[in-house]
């Protein structure tokens, strides 16, 4: 025993400890880079968004699959009714995951109402293995994670999922910028994903189907939800956001409605939503399973109205603790704007639309023979306070609260100008000749006019990212 505590052993123990500590540090940093961050697309991570939301602020959770994050915009509920809601939803989310996510979310939040979309009742396993480990990564390591593993993962694969590394290490082949720095929207978005795609649906596929027999796993899920609602003190509401359903899926969902009716749970059925929102199968769907932006806005309005009138929810607008919902709303509006900008080819329309968004910074550059185009750019640019003389001289401008400030004239002798933008991006302007390269750089990316007389870059200070850039 004496030998065990000798000086030499002590030094060796310190060395081993230091080595293990360093190894853990390096591995944890590497894991942060490799870990899944994307549950809704483009690094928009539900877990990171929830972690970034202040504790005890969420009043309503919308839980479910991609149907939820495509179909419910918390920004709409916030702007219309001041309801602090959150989409607790990832792609292909199973029933077990829904309960586990809710349980985990309730550790930090005290929701009054939880609206659960029942699409997950139509399947028992993920459609792709990729979704299984992506969804598992959405839950922090702990007893809930281990319990969920036991429910969803085979005995053989259990250790690999438990260690997590074997799941994510192959991501080295697909690492991008946001694996190294956090994705800005994940800091304030409330779970939704904006989508402006449209696909026409057959109205017949949206009609209700008579109830079948509720499967054992579905009964267990609904019982589990009721138990959780009692434990955590929230009111459960069941819903189904309209989707093109098969007979089997429709039977399970109708059976769940019956179950809810017997158990005294509130239900807002897909048929109610179709009718009350007057959803158009030709215009309000992204694909057979998801609503698009137009449909989501209508449905979000409906839920806002129902929640505001049926439950005693506080209007939190103006409360500083809820500032992230304001940012979420701005982000949603910017997404809407982006959708419009991408479809607009006319410079005048493009600029006019931007002039009504003073919170965005517009960087524009006029070079070469633009004056020969009958001043087509002048009228919309004058909305940013540009005089005709300034317009005729050309150069590079940036707007601040909707007012244009000259950054650099089209003069080769003028010194290059560097400006740090809100959000951290570095803007560099110079003039090496008309339509030359390196005249306009944003964080090293060359956004010079090159082939265009007018180049417009829309910078979003909220995210510190370029929202759009276009040449005319």
């Amino acid at each position, binding site marked *: 025993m004496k030998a065990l505590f000798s000086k030499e052993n002590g030094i060796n123990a310190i060395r081993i400890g230091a080595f293990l500590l360093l190894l853990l540090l390096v591995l944890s940093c590497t894991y942060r880079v490799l870990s899944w961050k994307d549950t809704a697309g483009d690094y928009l991570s539900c877990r990171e968004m929830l972690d970034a939301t202040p504790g005890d602020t969420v009043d309503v959770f919308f839980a479910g699959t991609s149907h939820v994050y495509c179909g419910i915009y918390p920004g709409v509920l916030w702007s219309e009714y001041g309801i602090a809601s959150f989409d607790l939803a990832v792609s292909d989310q199973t029933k077990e995951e829904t309960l586990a996510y809710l349980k985990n979310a309730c550790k930090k939040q005290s929701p009054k109402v939880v609206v659960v979309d029942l699409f997950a009742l139509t399947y028992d396993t993920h459609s792709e293995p990729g979704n299984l480990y992506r969804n598992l990564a959405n839950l922090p390591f702990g007893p809930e994670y281990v319990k969920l593993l036991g429910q969803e993962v085979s005995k053989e694969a259990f250790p690999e999922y438990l260690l997590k590394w074997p*799941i994510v290490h192959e991501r080295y082949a697909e690492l991008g910028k946001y694996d190294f720095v956090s994705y800005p929207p994940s800091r304030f978005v409330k779970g939704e994903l904006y989508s402006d795609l449209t696909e026409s649906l057959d109205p017949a596929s949206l009609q209700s189907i008579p109830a079948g027999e509720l499967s054992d796993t579905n009964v267990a899920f609904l019982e589990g939800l009721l138990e959780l609602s009692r434990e955590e003190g929230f009111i459960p509401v069941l819903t189904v956001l309209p989707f093109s359903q098969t007979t089997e899926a429709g039977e399970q969902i109708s059976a769940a409605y019956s179950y809810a009716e017997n158990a005294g749970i509130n239900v807002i059925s897909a048929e109610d939503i179709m009718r009350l929102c007057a959803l158009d199968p030709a215009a309000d769907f992204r694909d057979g399973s998801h609503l698009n932006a137009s449909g989501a806005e209508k449905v979000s309005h409906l839920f806002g109205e129902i929640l505001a009138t049926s439950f005693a929810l506080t209007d939190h607008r103006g409360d500083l603790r809820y500032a992230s919902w304001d940012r979420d709303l701005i982000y949603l509006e910017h997404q809407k704007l982006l959708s419009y900008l991408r479809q607009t080819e006319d410079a005048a329309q493009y600029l006019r639309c931007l002039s009504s968004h003073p919170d965005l910074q517009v960087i524009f550059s006029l070079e070469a023979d633009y004056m020969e185009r009958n001043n087509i750019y002048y009228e919309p640019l004058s909305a940013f306070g540009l005089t005709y003389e300034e317009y005729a001289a050309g150069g590079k401008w940036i707007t601040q609260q909707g007012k244009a400030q000259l950054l650099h004239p089209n003069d080769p002798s003028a010194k290059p100008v560097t400006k740090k933008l809100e959000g951290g991006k570095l803007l560099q302007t110079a003039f090496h000749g008309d339509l030359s390269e390196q005249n306009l750089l944003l964080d090293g990316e060359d956004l010079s006019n090159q082939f265009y007389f007018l180049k417009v870059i829309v910078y979003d200070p909220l995210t510190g990212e370029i929202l759009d850039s276009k040449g005319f």
Partner: protein
Amino acid sequence: MLFNSAAFVLFFPVVFLGYLVLPKRLRPLFLLLASYFFYMSWQPKYALLIAGNTLVSYCGALLLERFAGEDRRQQNIRKRIVTGCTCLSFAALFCFKYFDFFLENVNAVLRAFGGGGMTNPLNLLLPVGISFYTFQSIGYLIDVSRRKIAAEHNLIDYALFVSFFPQLVAGPIERSSSLLKQLKSLKEKTPVTMEGLSSGFALMLWGYFQKMILADRLSILVDGIYDALPFAGTIETLAAMFGFSLQIYFDFAGYSAIAIGCARMMGIHLMQNFRTPYFATSISDFWHRWHISLSTWFRDYLYIPLGGNRKGRVRKYVNLMITFLLSGLWHGADWTFVFWGGLHGFFQIIGDLKKPAEERLMRSLGLKEDAGSFRFFRILGTFLLTSFAWIFFRAESMKQAFLLIRRMVSGFDPWNLMNGNLYTYGLDRLEMGVLLAGLLIVFAVSCLCKRREEDFGSLLYRQNLPARFVCMILLATLVLVFGKYGVHFDSQQFIYFAF
């Protein structure tokens, strides 16, 4: 339980900690239980085979001790005991590994003479590592009969010698004079040292690097080309041939490094199994560097007893051929393995025959044998010959092996080196880049190891502490990130587990 499985990552630290904290007298028993647990995690019932093999050789050795006299009668009895025990051990090996192959050939002969098949094959699942522990226990019996060592009386110590988990399933095939002695001493002293811990851990990491980053990546490329052999040309078939040469080396050397490192951490020294074999300057030199524990086993227990090189040139070549053909058969129950062994025997005989002529030619041309360029071409030549022989080892049949050779000769396509066609066999540019970078690292380290005549673990241990830390952390991170494992990847079993 595979060394590159999550289960082993959990198993080894637990066993190591238990080994450290348990009283010394309990250590052999603890390691024995851990070894059986390790083996049974794969197929519990096959633990009975090791137990049976252990009991046969244990009792055989005790019997040998009773007939230790020098008179002829006692010598004959000893011979019978060794033969009996060896036959019993080989009977199990034959049933599980060779019976179906034997039957297949007998049936083929019967059919050729118009007869019918004898019976159905057994289709038994090959017990992992059966060839390794069978050879190890037979080696022990022969050593006892030759009175090189005394028979072991403690069954736990002996059972641990046969089933010691780091080398149980794929060697190195240890000698009782080394391993058994060390295992017996566990009860008296604590063999764990800082040097053993550090160099053992580094060696394990190095083994993982070779197995998981290189061998498993190469296997994707090699398998891809073998699957598309009828359409492959010269470049692809050459890539498959050289790729497999490297794959099998990194696979087996990687496994051996993990096994040796694992044992070294516990203060147990296992014999070196590889000494940069692809730096060999002749086939004979290659066999002094490749799977050393097996080649020395065959040398000591087969080649020398057959007469070795003491009974004339012809007999020497016959002995050499027998040894290599059996070595080929040891690797697998298929004619491809036998052919591979025969090819190596043939290369050695030719090498020996051409030696006088070669020496005369060198003298007349004034060539220096120790010149770097001359050594380089000899290394290259040896690598080409061993790589060629590996074609038969890798092929699923002789037909497939000859198809590959035919495609190699007839499918002229040097443009495939440039047009990116090689990236279509499962390794894209990034993966190929990782592979090449890994190969460069291994090449550099191998050169250092060869120059210093020591393994990676010992080499690293002689560096300063910060350098050791950086290397080990870097290796661990590289393995964890770039290693081929996990849910997406069907982990390749260590190739030598099948033998």
